[in-house]
């Protein structure tokens, strides 16, 4: 049982990054009632963006993240304007399919341009040995970055005007509109932020895992699980859900084959949805 500790720590570190991706998804859901099926593809774009900044411009991946933030925010606005604005009122099926179409377009163009050969950011931040635990520097930094981003998001949502507007719309869309918050701008902003979080999470992941344009799919599914565990529409819940999932991925393999982890994850996902759709944290 010596390996439990490193396992859990590895899980928690990656959990922070999962959490950031899931926060994006849950923010979009909370404000827009849209399940963004283009989330994974956006993450993959974040990975590529970081990769090219690193390999072509020799930009440190963590500095590169600033560029990723700006670009992905704009990209989010673009998607909202082109694919979502028109159908945002037509119910969840339309928006699901619109985001799925965006996903197909990104993956399609990505495959044609980047091919699907795996890429690797050859960046090492060393590793730290603490007794039986060996921590990879890149994972540690990614977790740190995730905490910083969460903090920044919190400050934004609670202490700025647009942030408060987003929260207001998330809580009650009809009421917020009555009070004159420009809903459509808020929706665009929320989608931009969600996209940004996805791209950043992708960028962070790319510093320690190889990736292709298709890599986002796995993380997108994990994000769904996390959002449901943490309560759909609850950004803080998403972070906690991410940590929970990370820890689960660390603990479960210690007593059953690793390949059973997804079975546990998705069964848990369905159970929580059915029994407590507000999430493990949420009120009944």
């Amino acid at each position, binding site marked *: 049982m010596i*390996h439990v500790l490193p*396992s859990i720590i*590895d899980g928690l570190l*990656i959990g922070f990054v999962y959490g950031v991706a899931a926060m994006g998804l849950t923010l979009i859901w909370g404000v827009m009632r849209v399940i963004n099926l283009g989330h994974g593809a956006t993450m993959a774009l974040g990975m590529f963006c970081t990769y090219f900044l690193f390999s072509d411009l020799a930009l440190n991946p963590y500095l590169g993240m600033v560029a990723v933030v700006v670009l992905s925010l704009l990209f989010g606005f673009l998607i909202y304007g082109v694919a979502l604005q028109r159908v945002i009122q037509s119910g969840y099926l339309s928006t699901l399919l619109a985001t799925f179409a965006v996903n197909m377009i990104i993956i399609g163009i990505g495959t044609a341009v980047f091919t699907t050969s795996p890429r690797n950011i050859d960046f090492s931040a060393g*590793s730290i040995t603490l007794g039986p635990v060996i921590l990879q520097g890149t994972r540690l930094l990614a977790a740190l970055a995730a905490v910083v981003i969460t903090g920044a998001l919190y400050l934004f949502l609670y202490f700025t005007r647009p942030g408060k507007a987003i929260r207001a719309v998330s809580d009650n869309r009809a009421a917020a509109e009555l009070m004159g918050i420009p809903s459509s701008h808020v929706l665009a902003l929320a989608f931009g932020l969600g996209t940004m979080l996805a791209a950043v999470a992708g960028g962070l992941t790319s510093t320690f895992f190889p990736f*292709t344009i298709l890599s986002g799919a796995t993380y997108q599914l994990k994000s769904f699980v996390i959002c449901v565990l943490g309560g759909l529409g609850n950004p803080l819940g998403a972070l906690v859900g991410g940590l929970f999932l990370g820890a689960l*991925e*660390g603990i479960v*393999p210690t007593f059953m084959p690793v*390949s059973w982890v997804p079975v546990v994850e998705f069964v848990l996902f369905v159970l929580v949805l059915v029994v407590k759709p507000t999430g493990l944290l949420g009120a009944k």
Partner: protein
Amino acid sequence: MRRLGLGLTYLALVGLFLGFTALPNPALAAEKTVTLGFTASQTGKLNVEAIRQINGLNLWIEQVNKAGGIKLPDGTVLKMAAKFYDDESNKDRVQELYTRLINTDKADFLISPYSSGLADAAAVVAQQNKRIMITAGASSDSTHFKGFSLVYMTYTPASLYLAGAVDLLAKLAPEAKKIAIIHEKDKFSTDSVNGLRKYAEGKGYQVVMFEGYDSGTTDFAPFINKIPAGVDAVMGGGHFADTTTLTRQLYEKKVQTKMIALLVAPPEPKFAELGEACISVVGSSQWEPVAKYSPEAAKAEGVEWFGPTVADFVKEYQAKYGKEEPSYHSAGGYAAGLILQKAIEKAGSIDTEKVKAALDDEDMYTFYGRIKFDTTPKAHGLQLGHQMIIIQWQKDKQGKPEKVAVYPPAAATGQAMVCPVR
């Protein structure tokens, strides 16, 4: 329709044959194009290996045609032509495209796509439509337990892939007892490690960990964390991308063991890009440019030699595709062509039944090693003649990674080393 098409081709061939024998000038031999149909993963997760394989095959086609084609006893000259599609590493596409290759493009012979899973899917279609398929880049034993009679294998079967590594371990570290196996859960890797496990346990080793990961896995931390302390060897892996990542993470996590032996990726030249992480990693290769197969050795064993020598193959390959040395995927692609060429020459025909009989009979040495097929109904087409070469990455004089053949002794170009302290 197909029957009709075949019949017509027959009639045409017979007609041509009669026509030309009647003609006084034998120099005007009939020329016929033989279509080789295959799909390749130009996109999808297996494209690196697949493209090498295609390069090998295309080199063979080019050389055959340059040499004037295959001449049949009746004077017909066969020119080779390739017809291929991108299968995107997707099985559905493979089946759809092979059906198309057979029925629409009228392929005479089929070469398999790269990887056991895809080859398996294609083999079903080949057999259903009664076409001969030479599999290259596919080594699942199980493909040949399904009752196919027209599918022939170029590679050493998966179950024997890492057997040499176990033998090497016994030599290198006689006190070693415990092996941990981490493998991709696809057909090929599963067949390999099942064979490995059986072989290792037969030799008295203890398999202390046996875990599979999904194709496309990038995070191996949960697996690496499960490796028990004091393990003597870590074995397994899968295909290039995942095995490379596994190797890197084994290094980053400072896993201490005597030997790391992995599938598929280590023989690849690109594996050297891992730098320090690849040092001492052992892999098994279907073929290496340093291989010592020669017409003389073949003669000593009393087996016929066929095709170019190892040196010629490497030279021609580099001339066509640039500096990079051919890998075993490329060699396998070329060898698949040779297998077919030899059989067609022997059969003196491209008739499926006749070529099949020639293939069943085939026993030869090539630059790629010996080729001989199982002809029992239970495992028809399984490769019996060919042997694996065990390689290891070591540091050369400049400290750069260098690939050394270490086993079997007959093929070795250097001494094997134990995994250094990390």
